């Protein structure tokens, strides 16, 4: 025991580690810093998980376009606990993005970024960008079809930059194609550059927290006055503060512990992300989707009108990042309480609603055709019962001409165009014919591709699509509407 104490004393005398750590643990934090303050710690904890699991994966992953996908399959299926490490890495990355967003929202709503903590906010914004870049490059590491085509989307956006677009694209991809060097480039970013930047920024962020202290809970009528803030804050901390450990750290520990358990449970239940289909670009029967953190972006680029698309895609991210950097300088002093900052609260609400609804739209992807809808989704029974031969044939044309890829019947099919269950209540046969022939309203024109007979049949079928269409009680014997085509009676 005495030997141990001696060894510790020696270590402390040579390294000074204890003297470094002690103020970290014992510095005073405001008594009002309660459960609102745990999200930053949770973000950091998830980052540590990322580093640990990432290093584990680094021992097995083959950063080569020829082998990456196979090595992930190997980790998933052969390596003991390999899939669990991948699942932890994947879910922890999502959790880190979520915790970071909540942390950022809390800091924004409580205006903790005001004097003297402007740099805390700015390093935080830098961390946000680095973490999002880690998430994107992490998706590339899977090197499956989503990764390949996701890179294609990134390349296409880069390509639209004026003047130097294609050069920047080549720089990003490491060549004129998405290939071996592309993966290695993103690998270097994902495991060296971005984690290095993140660790440096986290260190800076923490040093700034130590320098300026944790902000108090905002109170209405207690504005920040830069001239006297620091002195008053230090006086309040000395008088009324509590040591970080254990008064505040216990809450962090409880929250982080719950998060960690939840992470393991979620990872054990839902497993790792991908890898999806093998990265063979000639397998085009694929439906590329980004990971959750970028779903809102996927939704946004789908909903932009083509005319303004390039401008919005290239300029908006810059404007948003600039606005985030400027936040602490736009309102550097004054009231911090949300109740006294209605505009900022509205701005935060707008951002949350915008990202949530765009994510929702991205997940639903109503603009995307159901690529095998025509060959996979049968015409529901209520739409074939009691139809004439021509109308039945119209239903076949409806499938055959891939209408189902964009239009739903009976709740299944594409959502790109309107559902057609009751289209006959909205369109006369003449209007139906014109719409199918000429298209319009984001529908292609089918005029050239459908014969007269096909058009007759499909319009005949569509004209039966009303909620009140009477299904005959028994066939034969019930009266049925005549087909709308000019049926000349054949000679008998």
């Amino acid at each position, binding site marked *: *025991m005495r030997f141990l104490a001696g060894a510790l004393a020696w270590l402390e005398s040579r390294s000074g580690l204890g003297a470094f750590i002690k103020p970290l643990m014992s510095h005073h934090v405001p008594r009002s810093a309660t459960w609102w303050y745990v999200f930053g710690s949770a973000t950091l904890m998830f980052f540590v998980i990322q580093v640990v699991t990432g290093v584990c994966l680094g021992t097995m992953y083959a950063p080569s376009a020829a082998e990456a996908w196979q090595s992930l399959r190997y980790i*998933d*299926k052969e390596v*003991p*606990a390999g*899939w*669990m490490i991948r*699942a932890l890495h994947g879910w922890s990355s999502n959790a880190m993005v979520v915790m970071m967003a909540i942390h950022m929202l809390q800091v924004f709503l409580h205006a903790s970024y005001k004097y003297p903590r402007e740099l805390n906010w700015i390093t935080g914004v830098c961390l946000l960008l680095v973490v999002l870049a880690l998430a994107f490059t992490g998706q590339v590491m899977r090197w499956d079809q989503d990764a390949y085509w996701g890179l294609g989307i990134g390349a296409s956006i880069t390509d639209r930059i004026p003047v130097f677009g294609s050069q920047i694209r080549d720089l990003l991809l490491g060549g004129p194609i998405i290939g071996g060097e592309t993966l290695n480039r993103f690998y270097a970013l994902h495991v060296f550059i971005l984690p290095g930047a993140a660790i440096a920024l986290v260190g800076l962020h923490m040093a700034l927290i130590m320098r300026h202290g944790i902000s108090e809970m905002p109170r209405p009528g207690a504005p920040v006055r830069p001239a006297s803030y620091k002195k008053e804050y230090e006086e309040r901390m000395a008088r009324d503060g509590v040591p970080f450990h254990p008064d505040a750290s216990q809450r962090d520990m409880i929250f982080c512990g719950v998060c960690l358990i939840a992470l393991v449970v979620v*990872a*054990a*239940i*839902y*497993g*790792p992300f991908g890898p999806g289909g093998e990265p063979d670009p000639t397998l085009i029967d694929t439906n590329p989707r980004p990971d959750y953190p970028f779903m809102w972006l996927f939704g946004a680029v789908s909903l932009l009108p083509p005319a303004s698309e390039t401008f919005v895609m290239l300029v908006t991210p810059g404007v948003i990042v600039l606005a985030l950097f400027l936040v602490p300088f736009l309102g550097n002093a004054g009231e911090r309480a949300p109740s006294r900052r209605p505009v900022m609260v509205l701005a935060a609400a707008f951002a949350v609603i915008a990202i949530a609804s765009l994510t929702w739209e991205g997940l639903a992807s109503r603009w995307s055709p159901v690529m*095998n*809808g*025509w*060959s*996979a*989704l*049968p*015409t*529901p*029974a209520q739409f*074939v*019962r*009691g*139809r*004439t*031969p*021509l109308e*039945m*044939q119209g239903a*076949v*044309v*409806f*499938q*055959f001409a891939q209408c*189902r890829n964009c239009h739903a019947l009976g709740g299944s099919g594409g959502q790109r165009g309107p559902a057609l269950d009751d289209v006959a209540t909205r369109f006369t046969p003449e209007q139906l014919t014109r719409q199918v022939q000429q298209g319009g309203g984001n529908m292609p024109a089918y005029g050239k591709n459908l*014969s*007269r*007979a096909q058009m*007759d*049949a499909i319009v*005949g079928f569509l004209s039966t699509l009303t909620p009140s269409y009477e299904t*005959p009680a*028994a*066939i*034969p*014997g019930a*009266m*049925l509407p005549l*087909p709308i*085509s000019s*049926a*000349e*009676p*054949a*000679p*008998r």
Partner: protein
Amino acid sequence: MTPLFSALSSVIARRWLASVALLVSGVACDRLPGAPSSSSAPPRGSPQWTLATFDTHCRGCHSMADEGASIPLMDRSYWTFASDAHVIDATTNGQGGLMPAFLDENGGPFTADEIAALARGMRTQWGGSVAGSIAATYTAGNAVAGGLVFAQSCGSCHGPTGTAGSLLDPSYLRLVSDQGLWASTLAGRKALGMPAWNEPMPGRPSGLTPGEAADVVSWIASQRPGGRGGAP
């Protein structure tokens, strides 16, 4: 100090061992719900493969007895007369009209082997053996005699004034090939009220004979504006 140390170390060792055992049994247990399934795609020709392939590429038109607009394949009636060779030919080259060709060389998604496996798999799934009482491929009969059969057995529902909608609609006849008419006549759509060729129908309590079926299809085809063929 020594007894303290040994007591401490034994406690630590026991705890350590226990937690390692817990970790190994918990984490290495690949029975957790998140563990990636070790099974890869079902092998070609297996029932799962057949169903998955059918669901993706065929079911949109050829579904169950009461749904889908074209001949139901998830129903026995078609398989009683359609031979494997016929199914393979229809899938490979299409059937004129609205059935596309599915062979890769013809622009479709399947290799020849896949088409053969699919035909066999579908029969195992829904078919059974071919009855052999009538050929799956249409050969023309006597249109004049067929006119009489139509008037007696089909016209009450399918004639120009019939209740189930006229078969003689020129647009319908232009869309459907002779082979398509033949297959529809043979298979029927019992769930929708139309009997198969050998089932009771008006004027014919024991259904049609193979000859009558050929005759009546010939007559229906002869009513097509512009005569034979039937292509869109």
